[in-house]
C-alpha cells in the first residue's frame, strides 16, 4: 500500500512543480517560487482571476482533460497540492 501511496505522492509533487514553473515563468508570478506546496495561492497573492483561467487552460492542454467548470471551487485553487490533486484525479485513468 505504502508503495502505491509513495508513487501517487511523487506524481502529485511532480505535477505541482510543473504548475509552479508555469505560474512563475508564464504568468510572471515569481512569488510562487517561495511558497510551499500547501500555501494558499490566493492568500499569498500568487493567483488572481485571470491567473485562474490561465492555469486552467494550461492544465487542460498539458494533461489532456477538461475541467468540470461547475465543480471548480475555492478549494480547487487553494494550494499547489490541491490543484495538482485535481489534475491527478482527473487524469488517473491515463
Amino acid at each position: 500500500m505504502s508503495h502505491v501511496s509513495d508513487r501517487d505522492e511523487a506524481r502529485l509533487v511532480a505535477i505541482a512543480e510543473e504548475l509552479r514553473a508555469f505560474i512563475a515563468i508564464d504568468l510572471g508570478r515569481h512569488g510562487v517560487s517561495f511558497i510551499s506546496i500547501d500555501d494558499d495561492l490566493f492568500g499569498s497573492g500568487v493567483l488572481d482571476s485571470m491567473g485562474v483561467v490561465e492555469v486552467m487552460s494550461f492544465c487542460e492542454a498539458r494533461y489532456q482533460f477538461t475541467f468540470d467548470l461547475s465543480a471548480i471551487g475555492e478549494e480547487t485553487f487553494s494550494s499547489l497540492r490541491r490543484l495538482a490533486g485535481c489534475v491527478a484525479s482527473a487524469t488517473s485513468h491515463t
Partner: protein
Amino acid sequence: MIDDVHGNLYAPRWYPNEFQRAMVRDYLGRRGKPVNQVSIAEALCSLNRLLIDQDGRRTVATMDAAGIGTRLVMILDFGVELGEAEASVEQINSEVLEICARSSGRLVGFCGVDPRRPNACALVRQALRDWGGKGLKLHPTGDWSLLDERCLAVVSVAADHGAPVLSHLGKTVDILSDRSASPSDFVELARRFPSCQFVAGHCGFGLWPFFVEYADSVPSNLWFDVGGWQELYGGNAVAQATAIAQLCEVFPGRVAFGTDAPFYGFNMPLIEGRWRALVERAVGGRYVEWDRSDCKLRTRIGATYHP
C-alpha cells in the same frame, strides 16, 4: 444575497466580430501575452468556452454559487461603430430581454442601442414597453457624446418610462474610444433628468476620483457600480477595497456591487464569489438593491448578507 448592478450575457451572435477580437486582444494584453493571429484565435476559443451563455442558465447557476441575488444585464450595441453582429440590434435586444424576462427575476434586462441609429428611440420604447426591458444601457465609446441630442432623446424615452440609465464610463477596448465616456458629461446628463436614476458604470474605472473631487456637483440621482474593478490596481484587493470605501464615504448607500460579468469573472463561481465577498466587506453595511416592485435601485442599510 447581494445584487449585481452591472452584468452582461455573452454569445458571439450578439457581438460584432471586431468586438470579439478586440476583447481577446484586451485579455491577452492584460496578461502580457503576445498578440498575433494564432494567439487571438486560441484565446478566443478558450474564452468562448467560459463566456458563452445563450439562455441565462449558466449565469444564474454561477450567481447561485457565488451568492449573488439579482443581476442587471446590459445589452451592448456596437453595430454602428464596429459593423453589425450576426443578430440585428432588434434581435439582440428582444432575445436577451426575453431570457431575462423568463429568469424569475434573477436577471433584469437593460436594453441597449446606439443613439445614432435612426430608429433608436422607437427601439428603446419597444424594448421597455413590449420586451420586458427595465432600463437603458449607454456605451458612449463611438463617435457620439452623452450630451448629444440623439442621446438626450433616447434618455428621454427611458425617463418617460421611469427606467434607470446606466452608462459605461472610462477605459474601453482598443478599437473604441473613451473620449466621450467621461464622468463630467455623465454628471451633466444626470442633472438634466433629475427624476431618473443614473448609474455611473464602473465608476469610470480609474477616473473614479473625479466623482469624489467634484462630489458637490454630483446629483443625488446618480449612483455608482464597481463592475470591472476586479483588475483595477493590478488586482490588488487592498487597494480596491480602499477605493471602494472612499467612494462609499462620500456617496453612502449609492455604491453598488457590480461584476461586468462574464468578462472579469468568466462565469466561474470561484472568481465571482471572491469579488462579491471583497465588495461586501468594503461597502460597510450599505448595499444597493434592485427593488422589483418599482424597478428602481434602493439602499439597504445595516444588513449583512453573508455573516
